[in-house]
Structure formats: structure tokens, C-alpha cells
């Protein structure tokens, strides 16, 4: 589909002239056992139209029943976002005709969401913290999935026919809506990405969603508007729909700021509309204008009674909440004594859990970090997997470290032992035995090798005798080579100096 190329200005120019205001609507698919209003299983990836009941197909005569687990998950999300929880709330029907919506209305919440008035702190990579206020988090149901066939683009335009899979129809959703986010300035794209990442992390940590953006478990609609600095009134906003990766969220916000600035620069005005994000061109195109035609004719869902929450129930759910991710990070960084940069690297490598477990199993924070961030990460990079998915366990690290501490192997041999473990040869101890890895601790054997090395490099030997103790490294290297690395380098150094009558 050909679309007109949008004019844009450079991001720096845009931000120099205009103050961006953001807003997000993030849809989170809950990982409940069954759907929002029916007993159909909530499972991803099954044969189309197999996880359906008369209720989620909207057959004549059916009635919805609210899924208690979905309500509990929604309350947990609300609590994690610092929201108030409604004592009583209702559902409403949002009405529009579309074939992915079996009843031709979506059962949602309208004027009394279950969670409201919250706030979360979003930390950017350099440690700057923005507080994002949450307007509401409400319960609703997902629509079915349409697949448009026969066209070139996979879009409905040009398609010959469309297929619909109602497995997704009725899956519980929580829609989290922010209040307008002001003051982000040039950090707006970064904040957008960090906000969605934080929501994803929170729902994953709560274990209320699989939180996989590539599967659509977390979907973001990004609202962007610009206004001249100093102006209180918001500009006209655009809503970019279904931006479904963290990188895209950042890019979409950036693009919208550039596009809207270009329009305003020319004295034009921004159209209030929904826009589509295109990953390939990293740009948005116009969807449909928001207008009076968007009349969803909301009215209270007469088939459902209000959801009533008690204080006891909410406190029970609050007591089940895991430690918030941001607090946990702060606590662990302090406990481990890592620098800010060291800790961020650990987090970015996805190794916080592995390191925590390794320390819990008895390793020092320094040892745990050395192994996970060093040898394990290096091998993961080669294997193109996440370090945590390589198959290395905390026990492996502990055992390797103990073998080194006891002097049985040195660092170099430990790396070989790790290779053996990853090759499926057993535990580090088993690998060491099977491969015959052992530090040569027999001084006689070492002295032979030392004599050989000294004979091979007489000039170096003279330098050492002359007081240049730092030259001993070259002789140590020769000994290690001769013993195929199986010597304790520290002991070798001692013996060399002893042999030459030098005190190091």
C-alpha cells in the first residue's frame, strides 16, 4: 500500500521548539487459566477456534460470568501501580460492529474502573527518575484475531477474504491508562520505552501475564502531542496503535514528535487520529480520524452484577505481592556492593536472578559476577542465547570456584572444566577427573620445567638475577606452556625466584 511520505524535522529541532506531552494505553493479556467471561481455556498457539465455548463465540442465549482469577490479577496490577481499588465497580458494553468481536460489543469497564489513581517511578538508564501517574486500570476482554488473506500486504485493503480465530476472543485484558505525562522533553522517547518496559516487568514479576510483547501479551497505544513551551493547554494528539516492541515504542514517539513538529512549523495543525506504526520504515501513517462517528454507545452491562471488593480480600492480595522490581534492584545492588554501572550491566544481561541464586548458594558477590558476566556470558554470546539459558546453574559456579580455591585447578583449567560441563560431560568435578585436569603440584616436575625455561631464556634469567623481578613473567609463561597450563602459576613464580636466589 503506497502512502505519502510524511515531512519530518530533526528531533533536536523539534524538541528545541516544542514541549511533548505523552500518554499511554497499555493492554496486558492476563495468563489466567480460563477466559474473562467463559470457561474456555486461555492458551496461546492452539489450533484456531478450538479454545471456544458458546459464551466466547457469542452464540444466542449465552451469558457472561466474571472470572474471579482475572479480578484478582487486575487488583494485583492495580496495587503494584499504587492504585486505589474500587469498592464496587461495574462492566459496560462498548458497541461496534466488527467480525473479530463475536457479540459486536466488547464487555469492558467504562466510568468505574476497578483500579484508579496510581503512580509509578520510571528510572531511565542514567538513573533519572520520572513519576508517571496512572489514571486507571480496567478489566476487559480481548477480541478474536483476524488474518487477511489474498492481499500483498496482509492488511484488509486488497485482501480477498479474512479468517478469524476466536481462541483469543474473551481472553482477559487489563488496560492501563496514564494521565498526561509532561516535562519529559528530549527524554520523551526514552521515557516511553522505559515506561512500557516497567509495565512489562511489573506484570511479569506479578506472574499475572506471560508479558511477551512479540505474542501481543503487552500492547501499547502511544499518545503524543506537542505544544509551545510555556503553554498550558495541550496540543492535538495522535494515537499510534499497537506498538508492540520496546524499541518501536521509543521510535514511534520520536517519529511522532518529529512529524508533528514539521506540521506545526509550517503553520499547519495536527489531526486527531489513530496512526499505524511501521517497523520497516520506522514511521507512522494515518489510520482513521477520531470523530463523532466513534460513538460506542456505552451502557451498563445488564448481564453482570457489580464486582464488589472487600478490604480483607484486597489486603490478602496485597500480602501475596512479590517485592517490586525497582525495590528489589535497589536492595540487591546495595547488598552485593556493585557499582551502578556494574549492576546495570548485570540487569541488562538478564543475570540478576542467576547471580542472586549463586550468591544464595554460597558464592561471594564478586565470584558470582566474575563467572556470570565473564566466562558464561562470553559462551552465551557465541551460542547466541541468553546467558541464563545456557544451562549453567549456580551449583556449577560454586563448584568451579571451590575447585580453584582448593588449588586443584587454576582459572585456565576452570574454563576448560566449564566447557566440559556445557558439552554435557557432567559436573565440574567429573569433568576435571575425566579430562585429567589438575594443577602440577609436584615441585620436582615443576623444577625440571623451570630449569628448561631458564635455559631457553638465559638473558631473562640474568635480568632477574640482576634484580628485575618483574621479568619473571616470561619464565612463568614458559613453564605454563611446558606444563600445558596445569601448573599453579603462583607456586611456579616462587620456585623460579628461589632457584635464582632472588627474593621477590
Amino acid at each position, binding site marked *: 500500500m503506497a502512502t505519502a511520505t510524511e515531512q519530518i524535522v530533526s528531533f533536536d529541532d523539534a524538541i528545541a521548539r516544542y514541549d511533548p506531552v505523552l500518554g499511554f494505553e497499555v493492554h496486558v493479556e492476563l495468563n489466567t487459566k480460563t477466559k474473562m467471561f467463559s470457561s474456555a481455556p486461555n492458551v496461546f498457539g492452539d489450533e484456531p477456534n478450538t479454545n471456544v465455548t458458546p459464551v466466547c463465540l*457469542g452464540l*444466542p442465549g*449465552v*451469558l457472561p460470568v466474571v472470572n474471579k482469577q482475572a479480578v484478582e490479577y487486575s487488583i494485583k496490577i492495580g496495587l503494584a501501580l499504587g492504585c486505589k481499588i474500587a469498592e464496587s465497580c461495574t462492566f459496560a458494553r462498548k458497541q461496534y460492529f466488527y467480525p473479530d468481536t463475536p457479540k459486536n460489543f466488547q464487555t469492558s469497564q467504562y466510568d468505574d474502573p476497578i483500579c484508579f489513581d496510581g503512580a509509578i517511578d520510571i528510572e531511565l538508564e542514567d538513573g533519572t527518575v520520572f513519576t508517571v501517574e496512572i489514571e486507571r486500570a480496567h478489566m476487559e476482554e480481548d477480541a478474536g484475531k483476524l488474518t487477511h488473506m489474498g492481499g500483498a500486504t496482509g492488511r484488509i485493503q486488497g485482501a480477498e477474504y479474512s479468517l*478469524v480465530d476466536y481462541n483469543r476472543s474473551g481472553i482477559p485484558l487489563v488496560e492501563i491508562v496514564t494521565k498526561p505525562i509532561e516535562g519529559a522533553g528530549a527524554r520523551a522517547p526514552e521515557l516511553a520505552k522505559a515506561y512500557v518496559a516497567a509495565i512489562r516487568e511489573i506484570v511479569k514479576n506479578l506472574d499475572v501475564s506471560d508479558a511477551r510483547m512479540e505474542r501481543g501479551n503487552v500492547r501499547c497505544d502511544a499518545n503524543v502531542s506537542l505544544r509551545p513551551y510555556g503553554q498550558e493547554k495541550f496540543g492535538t494528539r495522535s494515537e499510534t496503535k499497537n506498538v508492540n516492541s520496546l524499541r518501536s515504542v521509543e521510535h514511534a514517539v520520536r517519529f511522532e514528535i518529529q512529524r508533528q513538529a514539521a506540521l506545526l512549523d509550517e503553520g499547519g495543525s495536527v489531526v486527531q487520529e489513530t496512526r499505524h506504526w511501521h517497523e520497516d520504515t520506522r514511521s507512522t501513517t494515518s489510520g482513521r480520524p477520531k470523530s463523532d462517528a466513534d460513538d460506542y*454507545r456505552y*451502557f451498563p452491562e445488564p*448481564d*453482570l452484577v457489580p464486582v464488589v471488593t472487600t478490604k480483607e480480600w484486597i489486603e490478602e492480595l496485597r500480602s501475596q505481592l512479590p517485592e517490586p522490581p525497582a525495590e528489589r534492584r535497589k536492595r540487591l545492588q546495595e547488598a552485593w556492593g556493585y557499582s551502578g554501572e556494574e549492576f546495570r550491566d548485570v540487569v541488562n544481561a538478564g543475570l540478576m536472578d542467576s547471580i542472586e541464586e549463586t550468591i544464595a548458594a554460597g558464592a561471594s558477590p564478586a565470584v558470582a559476577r566474575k563467572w556470570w558476566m565473564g566466562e558464561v556470558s562470553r559462551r552465551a554470546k557465541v551460542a547466541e542465547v541468553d546467558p541464563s539459558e545456557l544451562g549453567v546453574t549456580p551449583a556449577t559456579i560454586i563448584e568451579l570456584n571451590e575447585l580453584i580455591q582448593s588449588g586443584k585447578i587454576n582459572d585456565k583449567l576452570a574454563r576448560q572444566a566449564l566447557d566440559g560441563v556445557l558439552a554435557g560431560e557432567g559436573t565440574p568435578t567429573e569433568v576435571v577427573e575425566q579430562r585429567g585436569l589438575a594443577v602440577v603440584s609436584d615441585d620436582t616436575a615443576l623444577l625440571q620445567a623451570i630449569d628448561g625455561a631458564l635455559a631457553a631464556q638465559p638473558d631473562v634469567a640474568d635480568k632477574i638475577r640482576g634484580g628485575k623481578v618483574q621479568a619473571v613473567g616470561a619464565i612463568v609463561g614458559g613453564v605454563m606452556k611446558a606444563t600445558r597450563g596445569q601448573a599453579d602459576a603462583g607456586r611456579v613464580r616462587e620456585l623460579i625466584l628461589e632457584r635464582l636466589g632472588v627474593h621477590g
Partner: protein
Amino acid sequence: MSELINNSAAELSGKLAAGEVTAVELTQAHLDRIAAVDGSINAFLHVNTDEALAVAAEVDAARSKGEELHPLAGVPIAVKDLIVTKGQPTTAGSRMLDGWLSPYDATVVRKIRAAKMPMLGKTNLDEFAMGSSTEHSAFGPTRNPWNLDRIPGGSGGGSAAAVAAFEAPLALGTDTGGSIRQPGAMTGTVGVKPTYGGVSRYGAIAMASSLDQIGPVTRTVLDSALLHELIGGHDPADSTSLTDPVGPLVEAAKMGNVSGLRIGVIKELNGEGYQDGVREKFQESLELLRGAGAEIVEVSCPNFDHALGAYYLIMPSEASSNLAKYDGVRFGNRVLPEGQTTIERVMGATREAGFGDEVKRRIILGTYALSAGYYDAYYGSAQKVRTLIQRDFDAAFSKVDVLISPTAPTTAFKLGEKLEDPLAMYLNDVATIPANLAGVPGLSLPGGLAEEDGLPVGIQLLAPVREDARLYRVGAVLETMLEEKWGGPLLAQAPELAEGRLQTEGAK
């Protein structure tokens, strides 16, 4: 006419238990009656011969083995075609669903199957239960067994006529604004709208969810109590279903006294607009109740004057939403437009061809009432009136135990008489609608024949929410006194139906 089919369900239950008749004989007798007279009545849209006989045979086999059976086991029943049934078509009286088979049973149907009641078939109705005469059925009108040129009431004209014509001893109906009670009044039968939430709505095709209720259609008050006890009770599949157990309704129907009860005559549901014969029969019932020791007092429910207006905003609003699913995409009939077949055009063509005029009228009305900018004035105001009506009931029931009124302002009108005048048709529900708006239970029983046209008049009893038992207590006493006066059931006075093809006055 076989004498067997003249019996009430309670009597048939006794005969089955005593072995005087088999369930197969009984079911066959009703199937024969349907074959004989339904050509002129058109109460049934589908006759379920094979399955009904198979269930009857099961009952007979179980009984011969001495197995414990539900008292209504083997007693046949007809089901309004708004209630979904596996193995039988469900049309809702609409072309939209012509040929559609439900993959699941309504909760009430599951209960009927569990009790081993043979289902005789599905009965005719106004399309999606929208109407007061059964003339809005896509499959032709049902005729009143008292006079084939008259309507049997609506929307449940099929169930009421089937019971009145002795085609079935029992039937299920649904009542959104009077669709059980008003046909009861028109056909000289008994109909009950239980307390909202008293009977599961799961599997009743929704017209207006906050008003719809399934209930019994029978020839006696006791029979309604028997059926009500079977179908009532909490259903986890219906969130609006009450958690209370069904009260002792049969016991209430057998109490046999009303002495000391205070019965309130609703001032606003009497007098102007009510046919003379209806008022006369209503007065007669009041005198009988007074004679039996009840205290008759007048109460005022001033907001009932606005009930019809509120109903005709709330009902179409909900209906416009509930009927959105009929778009030809997933089930039912699909109509392809000429030319381009976009989804919108297919939905449009399907709904254009699939829905009748009355359904379209209500969808348009409801869509308008819920539109941005009109919601507060229409739907919002109607909900306020609804609250006022509930308060009127609360105030009235603080003074009296039950309320009483005529069920409908007139006796059965002629086929076609009000078809071109929707407002006149709507007015026939003026007395039944308040109960739906407030969720209170109501019962209609025959009060005699109007002198001017010889057609049945209905007497309506209303009780507070959850107090359905009071309806059965008062209804059964009044029924006994009236039948003593008439020397037998009112339906004994109904004209003998000619067997075979339809014969109307005009055709004679």
C-alpha cells in the same frame, strides 16, 4: 378429544405414578392432539416427535424398574422457541435463525431433561419476543383457541395457545414486559413471571437482559408451582441468578386460605382504558377474595403512569445491543448483497433481510436512545423512572401483602387489528410492564369471560421480590373459588376445536 389430555399436569403426574397411563401413551396423546389441531392454531414451529417418545419410553422403563423419578417425569412440555435446545431447531421466530441448531441446552432445558419430561416441541412467538400478539413471528401468527380470528397474546402466544388447546399440559415461556402473563390472560391459562433472577436465563435468547425472565405456562396454579420449583434456583452460569433456594411454591399453592392477607388494588391499573368486561371480572375476583377473608385496600403507584415510556426506552436499548450479534458472520443465515461483498455490506444485507419490521423498529429506537448526546435524556431518564417504580412497589408492599390488577386492559383483539399501530399494541402491556421494571414476580390466572365478547379476562397478582410463594397461595385460592362459580375450569367453556385444516369465521 381424548379425556387424558384434559387433565392438569398434577393429575397426569398422579396417573403416571399410579400406573393408570404410561408416559408413551400420554406423550402420544398430545402428539396426536398437535397433529389434529395445530394446523389451525399454529402454536408449534417444530414438533419433536421422536425424541419426546424416546424420553417417554425411558420414563416407562425406569418406572417399571422401580427407579426414583421426578414427579413430573413423563409429563410432556412445550418450549418457547426463544429457549435454546440441542437436537431441535431454535429460531426465536426469526428468519435470521431459521435452520440454526444450538450446540448447547439452556439451563431450564437441562433441568427438564434431568426430570425426564418429554419435550413436545418448540412454540411460536413474536420475532425475538418482540410483540404482544405473536403476529410478528416470521413463521405466521398463532391463533387463539377461543376464537381463531383473535390473537393469542404475545410474545408467548404459541406456548399459551398450546396449553389452552390441550396440545401440551405445560409450557415454558419468557416474560420481558408481559410475554407470559398477557398471553395467559388472552387464552384463559395461567402464566407466571418469577422474581428476576429466580430462574436462570442461560440459554434464553436475550431481548432485554435486565427484564427477561423464564417462567411457567400452565392451565392451573398448582401446575405452575410444580414447574416453577423444577426450573427455579441458582445457576452459576447466570450472574444475575439469585442464590436463594426456590421457595416452597407447591406448598403455598396448597395452603387454601387467604384469610387476613392484605391485597392492594393498584389505582393506576384500573378504570380508564380498561374494557368493561375486564373491569367487571376484576371486581368479581375482588369480591371473592374479600369473601374469603382477605382485606382489599386501594394503593397508589403514581409512577406506573410512566412505566410504559421507560420500558420502551430501556427494552429497545438493551435489545439493540443484544441483537447486534446477528450479523451472518458466525451462525444463522447470511445474505450476500448485490455487488461488492465487504463485511459491512454482508452484515447490512443479512440484517436487512433477516429481521422483521418490529425488530428493526426497536433496534433503531434503542440505538438512538443510547447514542452520544441522547443517552442521558433517554436511557438515563428511563433508568430514573425505573427506580421510582421500584420505590412505588416498595411503598405499596409496606402496606399490603400482594397487589392485584387486570393482566391486560382488553381481551384478545382481532388478528391484524393493531398491526399497523405499534403504540396501540404496546398499550396492551401497560399492566404487566411495571413488574419487569422492578423485578417483582407476577402471576396471571383466568378471571372469567368478558360479557361483551365471551373472551377470557386475566387477573394479575404481584408480590415483592423473592415472595413468589404469595402469588401461588392467593392464586390457588382465587382459582378454586372461580372454578366453583363456573362449575369447572374456564377452558371447559372453550369451543371445541375442529380437527384438521384452519377454519376461521370468514371461511365458514
